[in-house]
């Protein structure tokens, strides 16, 4: 079990460019969560999928951010027209159907220059 895999671990983008972050949940897990971590805001919930369906995206910024889960083996978080304030560590997590424990990936550190 390799755990939740996030790629890339580090990404540097220029202001205005697009960034796509990838997450591979643990095999058999039915729920996927995305969080954003910054020094100022801490750990912020972004969005949540269950059985590939979007359940709650209440934490997603209304513009430029989108998430998808096209199949049970991966989810993506896409940020269009990146801005310096998007710089953060983006964490993906997955959970089994019973939600007894949520497992986190190591995160993708996004730097917008």
């Amino acid at each position, binding site marked *: 079990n390799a*755990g*939740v895999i996030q790629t890339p671990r580090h990404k540097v983008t220029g202001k205005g460019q697009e960034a796509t972050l990838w997450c591979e949940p643990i095999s058999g897990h039915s*729920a996927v*969560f995305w*969080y954003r971590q910054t020094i100022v805001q*801490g*750990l912020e*919930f972004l969005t*949540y999928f*269950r059985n590939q369906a979007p359940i*709650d995206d209440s934490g997603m910024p209304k513009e430029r951010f989108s998430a998808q889960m096209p199949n049970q083996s991966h989810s993506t978080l896409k940020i269009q027209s990146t801005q310096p304030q998007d710089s953060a560590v983006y*964490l993906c*997590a997955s*959970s089994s159907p019973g*939600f007894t*424990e*949520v*497992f*986190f*990936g*190591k*995160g993708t550190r996004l730097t917008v220059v």
Partner: protein
Amino acid sequence: AQSVTQPDARVTVSEGASLQLRCKYSYSATPYLFWYVQYPRQGLQLLLKYYSGDPVVQGVNGFEAEFSKSNSSFHLRKASVHWSDSAVYFCAVRMPNYNVLYFGSGTKLTVEP
């Protein structure tokens, strides 16, 4: 407003000393409660969780936490810390009828030799 509060941003203790990290929550109903630890450049790892029953729960690596309904608290304790316990500790909650974890701001623990 619903919230999870960790009042101490930084805590420094000497190796071998006892430890308490504080967590208070403000929710209309008693949530499920969790403590996670984050080592540098790593994802979050679950230390322990409380759903119901005995208010003192045991976790990994000698950690325990005590739930207090009257104080709306879930403080983390360890009898004797080791230098390897230096990390950031997060208190988290989730409501019984919902699967999203919400985190406190974290406490950075430094264990001095």
